[in-house]
């Protein structure tokens, strides 16, 4: 099963890279667009949340600069029938030819149904969910932020004094768990004594509880705090107030923590969005599955802040180079934090291995439990 998925994905990815090369080639030849393209972008929260939605909105703004492209946006759309109707409305009333659905729960059944209903419109969804058998005009694109969290972890591991790092997480789902694991593995790669303590808030956006969780982690002795919640503003601010260091998530939070900011894991959706717009304007076909990380410039780290020590910067830069070279994060032998072996010695999981999308454990060195 997993090997089949792997081969399927590798195939798709090489196709995607191929089409990327093709479009850039075409772009240089023919600067004018054949016809205007309306692109609809749907957000689950407010566009300026210092986090997930903002990362997309920043890319949407860049996309709107592309000649011939018109962007229509809708924010605070819940993962209910409302999103189905928003997609249909964008097609019916705005004439959208490409729709980016940016929240996880939009995919099934809403985006799949919309794709079946409007076969001439392209639908793309920001999570690695598309599989063979789903509509051909639907697809997934995803940036593997765990690579940037790994770099965060490296920088954090060399910036901590207490060797205790804190992670405020929303829900124990695979994407979050893989970020926690990558952060931990990054920290341990340079500082074997480092441990990561996790607190789950249970909600994607719940500022008071996020602040309480940050305080609890600092009280427990953590001196670097990072997070995976929709809007990291509260966590980073609270950490700064408590005088500890912090690593960001989703978008840049550097200006929130002038004293303690180390670096942050950021998406770079505009790489994907512009690429898609170009492809469509040239009459090309969008890939059904496009996933990448540092190697394809889909993720990045926020420029280092005052909290990063010189040796942390050096090691993190080396880690970035590793990520660009597609060095695997998950290398055996690896145990989870209950002592079970999850990767035997001598094996490893390369980046974009679907195995990563199914992660359901916390690695050794993480204090916390997913149940």
């Amino acid at each position, binding site marked *: 099963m997993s090997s089949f998925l792997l081969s399927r994905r590798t195939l798709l990815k090489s196709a995607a890279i191929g089409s990327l090369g093709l479009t850039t080639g075409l772009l240089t030849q023919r600067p004018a667009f054949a016809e205007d393209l309306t692109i*609809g972008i749907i957000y689950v929260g407010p566009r300026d949340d210092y986090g997930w939605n903002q990362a997309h909105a920043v890319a949407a703004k860049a996309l709107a600069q592309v000649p011939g492209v018109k962007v229509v*946006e809708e924010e605070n759309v*819940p993962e209910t029938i*409302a999103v189905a*109707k928003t997609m249909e409305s964008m097609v019916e009333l705005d004439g959208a030819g490409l729709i980016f659905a940016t929240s*996880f729960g939009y995919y099934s059944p809403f985006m799949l149904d919309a794709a079946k209903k409007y076969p001439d419109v392209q639908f793309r969804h920001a999570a690695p969910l598309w599989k063979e058998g789903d509509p051909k005009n639907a697809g997934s694109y995803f940036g593997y932020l765990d690579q940037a969290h790994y770099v965060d972890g490296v920088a954090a591991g060399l910036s901590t004094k207490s060797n205790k790092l804190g992670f405020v997480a929303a829900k124990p789902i695979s994407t979050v768990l893989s970020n926690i694991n990558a952060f931990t593995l990054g920290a341990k790669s340079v500082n074997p004594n480092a441990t990561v303590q996790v607190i789950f808030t249970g909600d994607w956006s719940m500022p008071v509880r996020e602040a309480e969780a940050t305080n609890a982690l600092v009280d427990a002795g953590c001196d670097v705090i990072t997070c995976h919640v929709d809007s990291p503003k509260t966590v980073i601010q609270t950490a700064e107030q408590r005088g500890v260091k912090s690593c960001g998530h989703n978008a840049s939070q550097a200006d929130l923590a002038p004293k303690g900011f180390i670096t942050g894991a950021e998406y770079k959706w505009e790489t994907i969005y512009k690429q898609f717009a170009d492809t469509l304007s040239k009459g090309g076909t969008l890939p059904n599955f496009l996933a990448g990380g540092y190697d394809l410039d889909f993720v990045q780290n926020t420029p280092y802040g005052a909290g990063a020590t010189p040796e942390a910067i050096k090691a993190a830069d080396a880690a970035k180079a590793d990520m660009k070279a597609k060095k695997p994060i998950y290398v055996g032998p690896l145990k989870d934090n209950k002592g079970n072996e999850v990767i035997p010695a001598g094996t490893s999981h390369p980046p974009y291995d679907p195995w990563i999308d199914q992660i359901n454990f916390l690695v050794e060195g993480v204090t916390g439990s997913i149940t």
Partner: protein
Amino acid sequence: MADIAQQDGVPAMAGGLAETMDRLRRSSEYVVIPLFALVVAGLIFSLFLFALGQSPAMFFSLLWKGGFGTGFSWQNTLVRAAPLILTALCVAIPARLGLVIIGGEGALVLGAFTGAVASIPLVNAGAPPFLVLGAMLVTSVATGAVWIGIVGALRHYRGINETIASLLMSYIAIAIMNFFVEGALRDPGNPNKPSTQPIGEANMIGEVPGLGVHWGLPVGIVVAILLWVLMNRTTFGFAARVTGGNVRAARAQGLPVGKLIVTACAIAGACAGLAGFFEVAAIQGKANASLAAGYGFTGILVAFLARQNPIAIVPVAIFLGGIAAAGGLIQRRMGMPDATVQVLQGLMFVVLLVSETLYGRLPFFRAKGDRR
């Protein structure tokens, strides 16, 4: 309400037609005043837009286009109205007994959740759709009924304020669902969005043929009509209204007040549970955190705008569904925040409640000879 129809200020010689006209004139109060209030709210909102440099004309034309202007808009509107009818009934029925229940959201979420859970063993055993859906329906409705029934019982037997209790229980219901959905009942096949096991494509309730809207809408309308009959044409409804008018008088007349309260609350909860059933069976296909989408809270608005009348809830739910449907278009075309629609709704709600004070005060709607 009943006193209007019973006044006999019409001279007998005027005959049947005049009498009917007169009755119409007097009862038109219940249509004219709310419409007047909506117009006033619209005017105030226009001023608001105008002050912000936006065009009210464009706003209202987009509102029309997005909500009611095209066949697609109607679909969009009706789909959004479907859960609102049922959650509004969850408010309206207890309101007839003088109770303000604002916890329909919890009953919806918990009903949807238990319904989805009930489907799991049957789906795994390969049961036919009618059995799966039947079990889900019964479970969802019963859960909702028990959940709000508890609120009624707490109110009557412990004297706990039902508004607060239902709200607290709403939060608790959502916590219960999240606990199980992310724990014991989590579907391992869906690692990134904690959900229960899907009920499966074959078990989903489809759309009403030719309408593009799921069956929750017609069912909601039928339930609304049935509950109107129950509240207005049966002994139960009469007793409930007496209790709502004056609890002491109801007790003095020997009415089983406690039973009435708990039953009405259970009916209310059943409606919310039913809404939850449709959310799972017709839309989500599984239970997850998206079920708490605020339908229960919008239902409060619908019920109050409809003055707690089950039949009036239907057009009001469609009206509010239309506003919600147009909200996206307004965001995209005018670049206005999504909260614009919320401001309009809040304003309408406030003005409509203020207009309540007009009832019985305007001479035009009074019976002849009545110089109150």
